[in-house]
């Protein structure tokens, strides 16, 4: 599944046919730049309880496409393929500090990318993949997506439990988290 360079957004769509429902859309309402929308996928709101009415939406876009559409200068040899996955709940302002504390620990367990909260209070996962000469390895991209959705599933509902007050910060921190193939505490994982 190795592609000829440069990889286009249509090639990315083809790679995602291996297991992901997706569509192509204009990025930021700009017809010159395209992005791939992944899903919507059902949100795992509790262990093994997927709710299709609460969609998890992914986005994939090349930074050079956006820069080019805006008439900016760019380096054709170096690009970023950004993956953004937004979760279907909001964090009240008063709970954001606790969420940031938990994310600080959990982000150390996430092998690629990190979680944070946007200005609208939505939790999202983001990975900015640096790529050379716009050469995207299909297998590597599928691995990135697989890891990202694994952690969205395993951590998303925990973030929501804290945001909604269902679980306290102490309870969440004391929970055993089985995410890795080997036992690994947060500090060593970094």
């Amino acid at each position, binding site marked *: 599944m190795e592609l000829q360079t440069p990889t286009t957004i249509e090639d990315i769509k083809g790679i995602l046919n291996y297991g992901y429902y997706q569509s192509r859309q204009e990025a930021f309402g700009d017809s010159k730049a395209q992005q791939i929308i992944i899903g919507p996928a059902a949100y795992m709101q509790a262990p093994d309880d997927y709710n299709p009415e609460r969609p998890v939406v992914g986005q994939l876009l090349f930074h050079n496409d956006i820069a080019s559409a805006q008439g900016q200068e760019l380096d054709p040899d170096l690009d970023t393929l950004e993956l953004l996955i937004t979760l279907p709940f909001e964090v009240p302002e008063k709970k954001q500090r606790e969420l940031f504390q938990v994310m600080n620990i959990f982000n150390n367990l996430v092998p690629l990318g990190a979680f944070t909260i946007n200005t609208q209070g939505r939790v999202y996962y983001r990975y900015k*993949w640096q790529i050379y000469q716009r050469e995207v390895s299909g297998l590597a991209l599928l691995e990135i997506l697989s890891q990202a959705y694994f952690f969205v599933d395993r951590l998303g509902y925990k973030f929501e439990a804290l945001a909604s007050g269902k679980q306290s910060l102490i309870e969440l921190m004391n929970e055993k988290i089985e995410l890795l193939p080997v036992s690994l505490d947060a500090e060593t994982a970094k």
Partner: protein
Amino acid sequence: MVSLKALEKEGLSPLAYFGYVFDQAEIEASFVPADGTIPVDQLLVRSGQDIHGDDLIIKILFAEDVAQSLAQKTKQTITPAPGSTLQFLLLNPLKLERSQIPDLQHLSGVLNRLSLLGYFGAHVQDGWSLSYQLMGHTRLFEPSLLVRVLNGLSGNYRYFQPYFDACLKQAKSLDAILQEVAQI
């Protein structure tokens, strides 16, 4: 660029090869092989200076080596995932008090929205840090891509360092710092 096979034939780690390429490009790098005290091979790279003129040292290692080393330690086996992940870590060496951590974690979370590359974190043991992981389909990454990552991380670190400084020195309240961040 050399091949992975050629490196293996010479018994060279890709990290040692990256260090050699960086040296050629006048980027100071030091390869530290695994031994009794360091469980996995590492490459330490000097990537410019921070806003106070102190050297910025970025530690680079393979994430799969860390997982493998921990698995061996706990006598477990792991199935290798496809591809390879190179981990970059830029630590601020300042020792933190436990009481400083929640504010720094809050600030890190907010700055992670704006971070151009990598994500910030704060820990009692290591201070505040900026990390990034680069996925590749083999362990032989394109050196010019690695240089871009190094430059991106050090630039990002310097850009946001004043906010961490203000938080650590308690020169301003966290709310005041976050209001400034909101204006970026």
